[in-house]
């Protein structure tokens, strides 16, 4: 971030001018976006719109993790892919779209799923993580590695006509510091029983419902980055609550903001008493699959 007279190119002024004149962004915010790196885990219904708006806004480095391939049944909601990309890796399909939208950024393709083994080496390359996945096992894994590596996490999910959004581990203070934001385990200390878990494939999903949640993830990321809140400073004071945004397409009002708790004093991941470490995570001693149950959902809840 050089404070020169023209810190951006004329192409950049043209491309980002409309957002740079928004209060709270300005040149400083744009430079922060340019210097930032964001990892999007999941190139599906959440990850597609999130990636599009992050690339549009000029986030300097965007990584995408996904092991899946594009299917026809994805296309009603995964709007970066196209019919001719069916069968291609989602990550490659998404990046080819992003490059055509904004060729000035760096894109990293991670074409296998995030695992306990590869998560440290992938996540450590980024400043901020978006959880755009669709299963509780990945949600616990992503939260754990974000706590261990001190990365803020913007987590969203959607099913049928409902969506949920939480910003976790923000500020991303070290485990044991109560002023840090709560992690996924603080909010959900125990995983749900496997038979209560429904994927979008089984439960169905409206495209714009998951789309709204993905766009809101991009917005939260842009607010954190442009606001200089990626790196948590000092010890902080007091505790930090989290909030959850609920969306229900058929409810009135459709959006509702809930006040959640701060860090849980005995959280397995982020408390002073945490039982989690990079070693235990990488060694596979935490079985994220067993932890949440391995079975395919049998119920529609």
């Amino acid at each position, binding site marked *: 971030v050089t404070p020169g007279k023209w810190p951006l190119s004329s192409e950049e002024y043209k491309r980002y001018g409309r957002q740079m004149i928004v209060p709270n962004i300005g040149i400083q915010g744009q430079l922060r976006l340019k210097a930032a790196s964001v990892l999007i885990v999941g190139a599906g219904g959440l990850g597609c719109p999130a990636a599009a708006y992050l690339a549009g806004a000029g986030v300097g480095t965007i990584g995408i993790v996904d092991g899946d391939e594009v299917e026809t049944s994805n296309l009603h909601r995964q709007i970066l892919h196209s019919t001719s990309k069916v069968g291609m890796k989602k990550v490659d399909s998404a990046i080819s779209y992003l490059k055509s939208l904004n060729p000035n950024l760096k894109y990293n393709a991670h074409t296998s799923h995030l695992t306990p083994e590869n998560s440290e080496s992938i996540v450590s390359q980024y400043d901020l993580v978006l959880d755009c996945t669709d299963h509780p096992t990945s949600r616990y894994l992503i939260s754990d590695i974000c706590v261990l590596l001190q990365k803020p996490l913007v987590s969203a999910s959607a099913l049928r006509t409902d969506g949920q959004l939480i910003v976790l581990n923000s500020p991303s203070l070290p485990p044991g510091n109560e002023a840090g934001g709560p992690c996924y385990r603080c909010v959900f200390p125990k995983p*749900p029983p496997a038979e209560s878990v429904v994927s979008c494939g089984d439960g169905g999903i409206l495209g714009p419902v998951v789309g709204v949640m993905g766009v809101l993830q991009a917005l939260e990321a842009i607010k954190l980055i442009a606001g200089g809140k990626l790196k948590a400073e000092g010890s902080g004071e007091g505790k930090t609550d989290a909030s*959850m945004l609920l969306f229900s397409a058929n409810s009135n009002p459709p959006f509702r903001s809930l006040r959640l708790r701060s860090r849980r004093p005995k959280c397995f991941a982020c408390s002073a008493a945490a039982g989690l470490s990079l070693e235990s995570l990488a060694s596979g001693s935490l079985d994220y699959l067993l932890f949440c149950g391995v079975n395919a959902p049998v119920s529609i809840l």
Partner: protein
Amino acid sequence: MASTEDISIIVEFTGGLEMLFSDERKHKLSVPAKDSKGEAITVGWLVEYLCEEVMKDTRKEMFVLDGHVRPGILVLINDADWELEGEATYTLQPNDNILFVSTLHGG
């Protein structure tokens, strides 16, 4: 106060939980202000009441497991996590809004 006095509360379900409750997201309930022992009713009492009196679905374990609200369900008292309000021991007040949210995992 007579133990027959009732209070009105609103109970809501979202994230798919409504399917266990006659597919209704919003329930306006009138509940006794005191339980059978004459104590003011709590959210813990309400959970039991919902399970026994309101829920018609037989899959009780999708709502209550081992005597607790099942993992993956958040309980909100007037839009704040019940852990901020004393959890199951919170005493219900007239017009309270109690929201049960089942976590979603899709994307």
